[in-house]
């Protein structure tokens, strides 16, 4: 069978802050037998524009992303938030442009968050990582409530023999990031993150793992400000790919 051609959507935050998450995702997809292509001209899916009320900006960026990614068998992003924007919101952006709506809908159906793709499309048996230790998992809002991503990362983490998952209270509650919310209402955002971090610490896990870098930056920043220097904050791709 021919290799699946995957268009890898890096996401703005992984590009800017944590390239190693992108490389971990590439490793996972390539190990699973995919041909992974990273379109050079990709930038942002447009979600910040959409959530800020800038519809023309969101539409322009969606068109750009659709044109760049519609030639692949699948599009995969290491983020529930960006994947949700493409899967759920893109078709809704083009209510008045039927041609674009069709293209958006076609792309939406082939776009997946990383763990969802590995579990529901590729149905991988194993992952290359070798993580040793206890982790707790933070369910990000868009992935969880937008795309139904709950078991997928847990199924994959369970394949790591040395890893044990200790669920925290309120793992499905928002961490307070919320994109631009985190810089418009910084104090409130950080206070919400404080509740999340209390739950992370109470779980006793050595690391908190999640699928969205925005949440992870928020949680890591709050843990450190609270004086916790020990709890690692990791993207699920880093844990699954090994070397985290």
């Amino acid at each position, binding site marked *: 069978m021919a290799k699946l051609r995957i268009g890898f959507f*890096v996401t*703005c935050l*992984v*590009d*800017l*802050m*944590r*390239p*190693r998450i*992108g*490389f971990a995702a590439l490793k996972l997809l390539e190990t699973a037998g995919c041909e992974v292509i*990273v379109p*050079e*001209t*990709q*930038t*942002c899916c*447009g979600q*910040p*524009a959409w*959530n*800020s*009320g*800038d*519809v023309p*900006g969101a539409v*322009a*960026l969606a068109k750009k992303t659709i044109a760049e990614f519609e030639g692949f068998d699948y599009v995969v992003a290491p983020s529930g938030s960006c994947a949700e924007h493409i899967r759920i919101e893109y078709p809704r952006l083009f209510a008045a442009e039927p041609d674009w709506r069709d293209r958006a809908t076609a792309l939406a159906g082939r776009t997946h968050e990383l763990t969802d793709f590995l579990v529901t499309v590729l149905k991988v048996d194993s992952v290359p990582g070798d993580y040793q230790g206890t982790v707790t998992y933070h369910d990000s*809002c*868009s992935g969880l*409530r*937008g795309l139904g991503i709950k078991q997928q990362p847990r199924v994959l983490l369970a394949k790591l023999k040395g890893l044990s998952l200790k669920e925290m209270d309120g793992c499905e*509650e*928002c961490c*307070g*990031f*919320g*994109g*631009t*919310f*985190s*810089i*418009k*209402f*910084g*104090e*409130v*955002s*950080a*206070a*919400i993150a*404080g*509740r999340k971090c209390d739950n992370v610490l109470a779980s006793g896990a050595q690391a908190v793992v999640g699928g969205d870098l925005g949440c992870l*930056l*928020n949680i890591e*920043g*709050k843990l*450190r*400000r609270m004086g916790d220097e020990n709890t690692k*904050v990791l993207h699920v791709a880093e844990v699954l790919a090994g070397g985290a």
Partner: protein
Amino acid sequence: MEIKSMRFKANASGALVNTVLQGNLKTSKGKFVTRRAETIKELDDFEGTRDAATAIRNRVIDNLDLWLERFEQKALDTGAQVLWARDGAEVCRLVTEIALQHGVTKVAKSKSMLSEEAGLNQALEAAGIQPVETDLGEYILQIDNNEPPSHIIAPAVHKSLDQVADLFHKVHGTPRKTEIPALTREAREVLRSHFLSADMGLSGGNFLIAETGSVALVTNEGNGRMVTTLPKVHVVITGIEKVIPTLEDLSTLMRLLPRSATGQPISNYVSVLTGVKKPAEHDGPEHLYFILVDNGRADAVGSDFHAMLRCIRCGACMNHCPVYQTIGGHAYGWVYPGPMGSILTPLYAGLEKSIDLPHAATLCNQCGVVCPVKIPLPDLLRKLREKQTERGLRPLTERIGLRLWAWAALRPKIYALGAGFGARYLKWLAGGTDRIRLLPAAPEWTLGRDFPAPQGKTFRELYAARQKPAKETT
């Protein structure tokens, strides 16, 4: 009610350092969220019931004028009078006129959020009529210098037991009590004389039932029964969107309302009140007035915010909102807090008077998944953000920033340059550590937390470097 939503941010900052409030929010969050989760499990088909409730509400709001006329006709048939108020000022005028007409000097009120919208208590006082709040929470607030409610179901939820104990001691002049039953008994004793001496009872209405011309009241304290049956005049004030077609529909909605609101399978009292006292009957009001209020609702019909009219005021959206859970209800600055308030306040009190509210949400959609009538609250918040952008209501710096960012994101080379610079700049700010303590470009972030340091080069740079040798060999 005076709108203070423009002070949202300052209000929120104050709320964060109010230790009593923070303690009370923590306790109430546990109760509301846990109890709801327990009681919805009792339903065989919660999702199916939500769908049914959504359909009932849609059926009404899609033909609201028709259902209002049906309700009006039935209510008139039962001997009630039906009056219409365009806004809060008209509500105040109508209630005052009714009171004066019947020689009323004291009004006993059960909880009505619409009377808060209208600022009715102040209007009555100005006309020399004494309003007495008889819902325990509302009573506590009224005797504490007319403090506004902070929650639609539990108006005094921001107050601690100690605060209430101090308040009763001071206002009632009684020995200070610290047990809840003793405080409740004290309130009951004070309120009983008001029930007996009030000439008019005033209530809200959870639902208006078109097929019978009735009002349904969902309460826990029994004060609603007193207010609506003892005085000779009963005035019901509700929003025009509260109509439902049938009693059968009421039973469907009642499977969801108490469960979503307080996590009760059923509230202590559910009253369905129909018409005036008939000659052979012993209790009930001699005069019954319905004041059906628009105050911005008619404008929402058929608009982008039509779905918001489905709201049955359970408060689940705020109880589950991470922002409400963190700052409480007063910060929102008007009658309705939480996600519902961040939509209703701009719609009913003015988008330009509540600039922050549509943005005061992480769009986590916890509200959307608990809403018993499936209102897509995050979508509506986003829509309000669109309206703000269209009307140029956002701060100039934000508009320019967004515009610049979108401009660059459409130009990959410029975007790559910007990202490369950003990654290096942030790394430099971290000064060799793994974190940034003060982020000049976004100082709000680092008010309460650090900003983790980036790796220093972008993924696209590192990926291009990795691909280069491979390209050269082929």
